[in-house]
């Protein structure tokens, strides 16, 4: 089980800053599909990136349960 970190609007959609889920072997694309099935509200935001071990991940990257995974909605610093 992984504890996916959720920030900003993602934290509000998920209802928590951590989301427990099984991610082992999923590609980022598959992970995103799963997230959108669990929380259809993600379809209403402008999109989001996934960071793995604090680096933006490509869609093809494959996850393991040891990874630090985070949902990164559109950033708005500055």
């Amino acid at each position, binding site marked *: 089980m992984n504890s996916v970190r959720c920030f*900003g609007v993602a934290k509000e959609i998920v209802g928590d800053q951590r989301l427990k889920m099984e991610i082992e072997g999923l590609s980022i694309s598959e992970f995103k599909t799963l997230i959108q099935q669990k929380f259809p509200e993600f379809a209403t935001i402008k999109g989001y990136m996934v960071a793995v071990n604090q680096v933006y991940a490509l869609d093809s990257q494959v996850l393991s349960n040891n990874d630090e995974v985070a949902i990164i909605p559109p*950033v*708005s610093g500055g």
Partner: protein
Amino acid sequence: MNIEVLLSKEKLSIDRCYSSVVDEACGGICLFVGTVRNQNKGKLVTYLDFESYEPMALKEMKKIAEKGIHKMGANHISIYHRTGYVGISDIAVIIAVSSIHRKIAFEVCQYCIDQLKETVPIWKKEFLEDGSYWVGARP
């Protein structure tokens, strides 16, 4: 070639940020200071709340500064960002860039703030008189 990146719940100091990039060999320092506006898209803003994914945000800030120095020719760069509650007119971000000649300082400072707004995992929640929302999250 110094880089300083900072996320802070306390007020940001322009003097500290400026001092961190001063160099006897550098004649030009460009600073950008981003403050909280009292309105956005015609609505009155009462305050902001900044959330960050701190370790990744610091890494992304460092990457920006590294590009500004190693690819664009600046000498020293500091990037400070406030987190948590920030009131109207308070400073949300300070970027200081020093270089031998001023043109590069301007270019790199502008690059840093443009890039920060694109890639650094920091989120701004705007509190209006009648509610709040995450800026830029929804179409």
